[in-house]
């Protein structure tokens, strides 16, 4: 399926841009939920905010990798 994706040619230019736009929806929602919940947790229990901040950064890394895969894909899928 992956080779089919790379062999496929299309006459529509800029489809890659549309693909990236669609790929940014999921991580966008995910990041919003992550940071929203972290802020809410910090507001409810300020003494835990250090630990919440640490965990938030770890979550940030995992979610952003999905968005960054969309940027990096053209470079390794020819």
């Amino acid at each position, binding site marked *: 399926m992956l080779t089919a994706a790379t062999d496929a040619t299309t006459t529509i230019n800029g489809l890659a841009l549309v693909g990236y736009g669609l790929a940014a929806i999921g991580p966008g929602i995910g990041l919003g939920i992550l940071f929203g919940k972290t802020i809410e947790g910090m507001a409810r229990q300020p003494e835990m905010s250090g*630990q919440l901040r*640490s965990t938030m*950064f*770890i979550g*940030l*890394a*995992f979610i*952003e*990798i999905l968005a*960054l*895969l969309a*940027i*990096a894909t053209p470079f390794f899928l020819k």
Partner: protein
Amino acid sequence: MVRFIAVIVFLTIFVIGARRAKLVPGRFQSVLEMGLDFCRTQIAYEILGERDGKKYVPMITTIFFAVFFFNITGVIPFLNIAGTSVIGLPIIFALWVYFMYLGQGVKKFGVGGYLKHSLFPPGVPWPIYLLLTPVEFLQVFLLRPATLVIRLLANMMAGHLLLALCFAATSFLFFEASAGLKAFGAVTFVAGFAFFLLEVFVALLQAYVFSILTAVYLQMSISEEH
């Protein structure tokens, strides 16, 4: 070449800081100590605990500061490329972390024990293993180093591209575009500075994320079953 300059600056700063280390530190030394203490307590001890954290503090500190110095060369005006935006350096760091966490896990549990520990997490009803084990296998052996590489690389590359885009747009809009668009040149100029600050922040953040993920992967490899 840029990477050599980054390494030389990095080593110089730390050698000067450590050379005449006084018990009551002066300003420069206390800044360095704040950085080192941050790595020790906020990253290593927080994730790994005091006993295990002590073993890995040098590795985590090295990774943090090295990644930071290699990232920051991307915003210094005459060294325009970030050392980590070319694929070689992130691969080296990720391979170091990869072999380190595999090696530590194997050293602690033995090869079979480590595979059982990471691929068959305890406390799960057995049919779920059919689903869980392939995912865990992909995660541990393939996806962790790959995502470490791509995360660092793409963040640095994308940031650099945005910065270059802003400044190119400024020069184009100021010098070559029609008169109506010149006002937008000012906008992109300001945006260029905003992105410059964002770049510095992202350099720091990506160094922090890389080192905290190192700590997390190490912790997941050597954690006792509970």
